[in-house]
């Protein structure tokens, strides 16, 4: 039973982990790297609470084995404040009531940031449908994301 070594970048830092190849990326983030912002809500890629951005794509880290993260560039919720899109989304969530109990919020913020980075507009609900929320009923999250997109459009920034 062979351990595997994987090297990748998380939030700008290079990391190397050695262990079982099918150890979930979510567990590596939370336990090895102590980045507990990404949450486990379902363990099967259904709820999006574990969302991160890997190689520019929005993914569920609970269904990515660490084996597949070789050479990847990963950004988690902890890094988002350092990007204009992420910071705008965070501000908007605070201003417009997009967070209630907060457990879906990290994944939601990551997904919303990705949406903002790709400048999707009329499809916000569809783009975020992989993130489940049980508290808000979704409206205030949509309001928050729209506000973030408006703020970014005004600033002219995209990243």
């Amino acid at each position, binding site marked *: 039973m062979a351990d595997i070594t994987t090297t990748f970048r998380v939030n700008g830092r290079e990391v190397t982990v050695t262990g*079982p190849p099918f150890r979930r990326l979510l567990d590596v983030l939370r336990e090895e790297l102590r980045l507990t912002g990404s949450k486990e809500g379902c363990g*099967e890629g259904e709820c999006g609470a574990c969302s991160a951005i890997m190689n520019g794509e929005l993914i569920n880290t609970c269904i990515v084995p660490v*084996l597949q993260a070789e050479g990847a560039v990963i950004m988690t919720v902890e890094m988002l404040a350092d990007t204009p899109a992420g910071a705008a989304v965070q501000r908007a969530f605070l201003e417009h009531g997009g967070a209630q109990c907060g457990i879906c919020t990290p994944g939601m913020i990551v*997904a919303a940031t990705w949406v903002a980075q790709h400048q999707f507009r009329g499809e916000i609900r569809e783009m975020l*449908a992989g993130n489940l929320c049980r508290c808000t009923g979704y409206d205030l999250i949509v309001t928050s994301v729209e506000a973030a997109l408006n703020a970014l459009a005004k600033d002219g920034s995209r990243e």
Partner: protein
Amino acid sequence: MIEADRARSLDDLLDRLAALPPPRLIAGGTDVMVQLEAGVQKEGDHFLDVSGLAGALRYHRLDADALEIGALATFRDTRLRSDVISAFSLLELAARTIGATQIQTRGTWAGNIANGSPAADGVAALLAYDAEVVLASRSGRRTRSLHGFFTGYKKMDLEPGEFIEAVRLPRRAPDRWRAFHKVGTRRAQAITKAGLTLNWRADGTWRIVGTSLAPFVKRYETLERLFEEAGDDLSRIDVQGLTAAVSAAVEPINDIRSTADYRRRVVFNLLRDASAHARTG
């Protein structure tokens, strides 16, 4: 514990596949990882990760004759290709209903085929376009139609040592009409409980594909003939004829998601609706 390692190149992949027993492949991982979580995989399974072969395998090649979708092309990749979508609109209609964004960025058409789920929405769209699969092994390549590829629940015409290297869709004249119906328990992140994909082609032939109605996604050739025999005037398809044809051809089951009666009735209703509303041109 699960054993796994990474394919270093396409040649390496083909070499590794020639081993006995061959390793199981993992591409996007959306099916494999969920099955692992559910305990479906067993100790002693050996996996080979092909996700590092994007250079060779992650592409859409569209030319005058065909669309070729590489093994690692994802549903989201397809949705970003407006040229592909205008030629093959059912691909977009299917891809947009698969899971949600996080699944579409990882899930692949080839993986959708190889996983062999009776609910495979991607397979339904591919069958409606007479897709072929390109099967590669160390001893060469063969191409065969996706129609007939599945022979039973999770049983397919894939020899040991082979993998699905690409999916090929022949180009045709623009279709007359098409529809993609997916009934799930909700409108996103839903497993199809009854699906019907319809394609009325320029030459008057029909493709009628059912999802979650049988042990695998398949075409219903008797229903296709019924529609073809009506020619341009679909109102010639009468209710009794359609009822009998659906009863004979469609044999769904009761399961955790739905009932046989419901599934059969939905198929009938959607086909009757198609016969009333599908228009040429």
